[in-house]
């Protein structure tokens, strides 16, 4: 155990009571006097020319306050990556998927807004559409964007070392292909926002987002107003998992309508619209060849990816890079070649989702490792341990594993699951499998090219010295970042946690790139720590002056101040404090000077106590094209063992046990870390066994509801054994790094390897429905 007072504990999250009582406010919970309700008209066709839009009837409908189309909103191109701004707020020349936005309406109530949508007459000329990524790459396929012939949204070609030579020199080369399906993030809170233009022309946007900073920039760009005139305030957010990482048409059209009407405008997606907006997990096709030596040493990996991007780019450039770069570890490779293709199709655009770009290819690769181990007659655990990277290793694509408890994780799940007593010893129909993975602890570079700080934090102490407030633009979306920052501030200041408040998610407070790429614990954490240190040092300075001692002799812990580890002679400070607060009923007491008294003294001497912190990573990564994607100041890693029972008659899979170990560096809050681990397993289990966004032959989502699109319920989840592994990360605040996404990496392949162990059927397509597994078992019986 550590000797921290606050960190590494199981402190209850600071927003727990608000959320448990229903007091926590989410975007759709806000109402304002005079507020209008808005709705978006979406294309019913997957691919069509827009010949004419006639909104005159809608405009005349009583209660309608504004209708906007591309004509009013303009044609400013936006997107996530500046290299691929390929969207306009409303479609103007053509629509590219069922759900593409055509117009938006603001009215006095929702019923009127909906009625107005029906009155907007759009003349379409339907075009041939393409829904399959392989078809979209063929010559003669319908083309989505003129600027991107062949529907080729992005191509990546990277090679590290000599892969062909490596494969040739290998004793054994094993090949594998793998196909996942589109996964929806299925956060329980649909996107929602409330846009308000003040009389000063400034926009305030209350919105359910993971990235207030990027939303501010994109909305300012599209509305053509200065960034300084946009304030994004994120209330509590009901889950994000990636798709809430970019500005949405909801936010931009609400802002337009608010400007046009001078009224607050609220808009919330229906569950169906959440599916149509998507920006969730891509469909990936993976093709891999792995070369090894007879003793199990990995030599070279050839990896090819095809991604169904849907109609627009969204985060996709990063996604298609990640599918390659995130196989650089956690095993030593001598050579790696990657060819990635992200293809446009007439489906909703895909974006970032938990484990961004890495999940499907990790699933393919970890299966490939098991297939190789079997051919070599090696235990899959031993084979992984033989090739594992450790702290200080550099991947073949120049990712620096500044700390890596991968070996500890593997050993922890091996021993925690009783692997040795089970592997190869279970009856037919029962299986055990394992897999590993790693993930960035914050993207090394911002989405737009900039020298910007990734995070700044302001900490302010109340004038009485008793309350510390952390002000940050970072995004609490359920993962617990507010609690994490409060704990880091409390630890650094030697303050008790219950006297620290956090105000977050507001672009007026600080710069923070937001909740994506598992970055906030490390990056916002660094800035919080620095801001708190500044305050602590200021207080120490003033105290030292007052007490006539050296500042370095002063320490803070548990809300009290020590001088050379002793109480010190602070009588004068205490009596002054009590005199100032005559009549107060909570005078400071005890044998030590309290933080409150010390901070009050600092206020009296220097005015309001404010500390500021900032963080940006050092220059990271290699100099090859695309080297930025995959870089991070630190990497988290995890290993999982899964045990399954397969009904050999029906192909039904039951996951019996999951054992999970994750190296998150120092666990700032052990309960929150376990929460991320267990949530990741649940999302991975769903993607592996039953989640799939399905489409009909005209590109319409067939299952756009949480009844038809199935995510795991409490009955689908087994008992999980969560083991926290704590390497000490030199680049993290107090040695901390990520857990939110790395923890999903091993889940799918661990389940698939367990299914293979139970049945002898190697699944290369998700989800593993009873039917799919039954057919695979039949095929295998035939062979």
């Amino acid at each position: 155990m550590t000797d921290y007072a606050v960190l590494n504990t199981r402190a209850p999250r600071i927003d727990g009571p608000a959320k448990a009582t229903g007091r926590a406010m989410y975007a759709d919970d806000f109402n304002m006097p005079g507020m209008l309700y808005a709705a978006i008209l979406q294309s019913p066709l997957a691919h069509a020319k827009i010949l004419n839009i006639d909104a005159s009837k809608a405009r005349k409908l009583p209660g309608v306050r504004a209708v906007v189309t591309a004509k009013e909103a303009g044609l400013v191109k936006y997107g996530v990556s500046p290299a691929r701004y390929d969207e306009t707020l409303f479609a103007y020349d053509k629509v590219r998927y069922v759900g593409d936005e055509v117009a938006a309406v603001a009215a006095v109530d929702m019923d009127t807004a909906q009625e107005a949508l029906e009155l907007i007459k759009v003349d379409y000329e339907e075009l041939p559409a393409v829904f399959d990524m392989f078809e979209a790459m063929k010559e003669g396929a319908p083309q989505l964007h003129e600027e991107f012939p062949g529907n080729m949204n992005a191509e990546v070609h990277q090679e590290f070392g000599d892969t062909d030579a490596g494969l040739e020199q290998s004793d054994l080369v094993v090949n594998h292909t793998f196909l996942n399906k589109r996964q929806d993030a299925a956060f329980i809170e649909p996107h929602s926002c409330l846009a308000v233009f003040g009389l000063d022309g400034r926009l305030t946007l209350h919105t359910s987002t993971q990235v207030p900073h990027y939303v501010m920039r994109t909305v300012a760009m599209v509305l053509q107003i200065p960034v300084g005139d946009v304030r994004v305030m994120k209330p509590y957010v009901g889950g994000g998992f990636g798709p809430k990482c970019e500005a949405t048409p909801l936010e931009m059209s609400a802002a337009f309508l608010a400007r046009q009407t001078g009224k607050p405008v609220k808009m919330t997606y229906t569950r169906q619209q959440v599916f149509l907006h998507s920006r969730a997990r891509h469909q990936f096709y993976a093709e891999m060849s792995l070369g090894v030596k007879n003793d199990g040493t990995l030599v070279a990996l050839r990896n090819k990816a095809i991604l169904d991007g849907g109609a627009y780019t969204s985060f996709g450039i990063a996604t298609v890079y990640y599918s390659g770069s995130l196989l650089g570890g956690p095993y030593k490779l001598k050579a790696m070649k990657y060819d990635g293709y992200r293809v446009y199709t007439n489906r909703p655009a895909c974006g970032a989702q938990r484990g961004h770009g890495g999940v499907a290819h990790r699933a393919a690769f970890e299966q490939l490792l098991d297939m190789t181990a079997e051919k070599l007659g090696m235990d899959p655990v031993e084979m992984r341990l033989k090739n594992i990277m450790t702290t200080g290793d550099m991947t073949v694509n120049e990712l620096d594993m500044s700390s890596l408890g991968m070996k500890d994780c593997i050993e922890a799940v091996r021993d925690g699951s009783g692997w040795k007593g089970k592997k190869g010893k279970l009856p037919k129909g029962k299986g055990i499998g394992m897999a590993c993975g790693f993930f960035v602890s914050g993207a090394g570079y911002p989405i737009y090219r900039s020298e910007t700080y990734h995070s700044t934090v302001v900490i302010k102490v109340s004038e009485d010295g008793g309350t510390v407030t952390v002000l940050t633009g970072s995004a609490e979306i359920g993962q617990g970042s507010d609690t994490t920052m409060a704990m880091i501030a409390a630890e650094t200041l030697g303050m008790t946690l219950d006297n620290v408040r956090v105000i977050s998610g507001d672009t007026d407070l600080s710069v923070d790139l937001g909740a994506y790429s598992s970055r906030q614990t490390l990056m916002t954490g660094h800035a919080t720590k620095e801001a708190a240190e500044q305050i602590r040092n200021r207080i120490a300075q003033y105290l030292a002056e007052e007490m006539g001692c050296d500042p370095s002799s002063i320490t803070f812990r548990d809300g009290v101040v020590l001088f050379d580890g002793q109480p010190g002679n602070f009588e004068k400070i205490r009596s002054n404090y009590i005199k100032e607060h005559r009549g107060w009923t909570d005078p400071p007491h005890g044998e030590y000077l309290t933080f409150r008294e010390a901070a009050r003294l600092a206020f009296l001497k220097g005015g309001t106590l404010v500390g500021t912190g900032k963080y940006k990573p050092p220059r990271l990564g290699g100099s090859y094209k695309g080297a930025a994607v995959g870089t991070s100041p630190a990497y988290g890693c995890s290993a999982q063992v899964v045990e399954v029972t397969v009904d050999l008659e029906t192909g039904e899979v039951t996951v019996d046990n999951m054992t999970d170990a994750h190296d998150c560096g120092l666990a700032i809050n052990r309960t929150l870390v376990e929460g991320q681990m267990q949530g990741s397993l649940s999302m991975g289990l769903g993607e592996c066994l039953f989640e799939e966004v399905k489409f009909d032959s005209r590109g319409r989502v067939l299952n756009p509801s949480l009844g038809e699109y199935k995510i795991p319920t409490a009955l689908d989840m087994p008992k999980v054994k969560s083991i926290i592994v704590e390497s000490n990360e030199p680049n993290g605040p107090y040695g901390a790094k990520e857990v939110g996404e790395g923890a999903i990496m091993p889940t799918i392949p661990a389940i698939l390897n367990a299914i293979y162990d139970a049945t002898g059927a190697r699944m290369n397509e998700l989800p593993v429905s009873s039917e799919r597994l039954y057919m695979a078992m039949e095929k295998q019986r035939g062979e």
Partner: protein
Amino acid sequence: MKKIIKLIVNGEKVEAAVEPNRTLVQLLREDLGLTGTKHGCGLGDCGACTVILDGKPVNSCLVLAAQADGREVLTIEGLAENGKLHPIQQAFVDKGAIQCGFCTPGMILSAKALLDATPNPTEVEIRTAISGNLCRCTGYQKIVEAIQAAGQALAGTEVS
């Protein structure tokens, strides 16, 4: 044509004039300002809008406001007393059963309906009772642990 309904919400008498197609969740959230009840899908799939109607957990998006006429509704706002969390709420906070919190009100009310009827439930009974409340964040484990702990805490208070 609006209909006047009378019901008891969190122990207090409420009268409201509602359209026939107005749902209970709309009445609670929009007319009564009880936004602790969440709206996640509007189709009865996610359970975020769960409230307790005459002792039984229901999806308030699938109940018409008019159907609540003459009945008693308990929402998440009615659970804490005098600023003190209900033992189920406290257990959710203590056990780390809350992440984004959007499913939490419905989840807690499903747990309450279970523990009222079955004070000492098995794990399977707990998982079954909350199987209509979807949570994407937690993987449910800490929620199950919280409900177990709350059951024990409630049993303890009854003894004393």
